[in-house]
């Protein structure tokens, strides 16, 4: 059987390539969509995918051979790859036409594509949890057992929090709670609203539990209190994510600028 981890590194590589595409595109682009240059969204998604796939590839690389070569993992990686291409290509195609991808329900085609992207996004999120679960159970993994615990907890927590925050995002007509005035302040680089509620900061924290908790675990691994740190840190991270989520739902910006 093929090593199931292998396609994950190339997927990270193609995410980096999509970032490069966004940067060369930026040199020629003048069109705006919702106050942002149209190349920015595909670039941000590519960056996010690069971080996601590098993290997953690293984790699967550390698994024992018997955990790597399972049918579940092979299918998970195949589904992740398909979801990546569907999301990335559609978001880029739409941006190149200067029109929306998420929340674009203009006609049947865009409705169907928005629904397919939803299936893709859920697949990516659930796939992360599946790999986290496999790591948690893999006693032969070539990392400290505290780090293995942190990776498992972080990945699964990321899945749970993302299903909550992104689930709420998808049930709404857009990522804002309230209507930002034209040209209203945004948080630099991220582009989140600094004027009205914006669900994206909570979504961002939810996604990156899969890096934050493993990093915490790496920092405290080997200590007697390591598990307490990891569980406590996960609880604190969850509280922070949910606080940002509640703040946005109340129509308040993360910070007012």
């Amino acid at each position, binding site marked *: 059987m093929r090593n199931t981890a292998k396609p994950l590194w*190339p997927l990270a590589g193609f995410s980096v*390539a999509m970032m490069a595409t966004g940067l060369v595109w930026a040199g020629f682009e003048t069109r705006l969509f919702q106050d942002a240059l149209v190349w920015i969204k595909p670039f941000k998604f590519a960056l996010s995918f690069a971080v996601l796939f590098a993290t997953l590839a690293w984790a699967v690389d550390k698994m024992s051979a018997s955990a790597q070569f399972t049918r579940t993992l092979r299918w998970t990686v195949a589904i992740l790859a398909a979801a990546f291409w569907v999301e990335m290509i559609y978001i880029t195609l739409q941006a190149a036409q200067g029109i929306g991808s998420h929340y674009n329900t203009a006609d049947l085609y865009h409705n169907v594509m928005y629904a397919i992207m939803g299936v893709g996004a859920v697949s990516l999120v659930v796939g992360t949890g599946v790999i986290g679960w496999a790591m948690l159970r893999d006693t032969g993994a070539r990392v400290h057992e505290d780090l293995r615990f942190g990776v498992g907890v972080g990945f699964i927590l990321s899945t749970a929090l993302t299903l909550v925050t992104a689930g709420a995002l998808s049930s709404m007509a857009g990522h804002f709670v309230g209507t930002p005035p034209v040209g209203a302040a945004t948080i630099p680089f991220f582009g989140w609203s600094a004027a009205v509620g914006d669900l994206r900061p909570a979504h961002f924290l939810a996604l990156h539990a899969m890096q934050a908790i493993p990093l915490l675990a790496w920092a405290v691994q080997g200590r007697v209190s390591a598990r307490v740190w990891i569980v406590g840190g996960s609880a604190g991270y969850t509280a922070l994510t949910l606080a940002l989520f509640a703040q946005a739902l109340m129509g308040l910006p993360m910070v007012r600028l």
Partner: protein
Amino acid sequence: MTADDLFGLASGAVLPGWLILMLAPRGRWAWLDLVPSLILPLGLSALYTGLVLAHFSASGGGFGSIAQVRMLFASDYGLLAGWVHYLAFDLMIGAMMAAQMDKMGLPRLSQAPLLALIFLFGPLGAFLIWVAQGSLRAVGKGGAA
């Protein structure tokens, strides 16, 4: 045959080549691998050679400016030659890139969208593959290159 007939013939001819790259097993039958990498590009190159020798000078165009290049493509046969050039080289590059992606350890499912990008927007697909390959090598994950 009219320029339109030749256009249809050439455009149709590359499709089996792309399908072989995307779907057929590689490395099992040498003759099958040769269809997209040599046989079809060779046939299209022959067609291009005939078209360009017969129609280039009559166009009055050249390679020196946008205006000159536009003149090259002013006639249907000039345009057809340009199109056949795309078809031949995109397929040839597609076959080379597929072999590169095999070495990167990329499964066929993930190669298909990239090959489709080369088919539709040649250099865009090649750019993606080169940057991906370069960034993987930079972190020591380049595969058996």
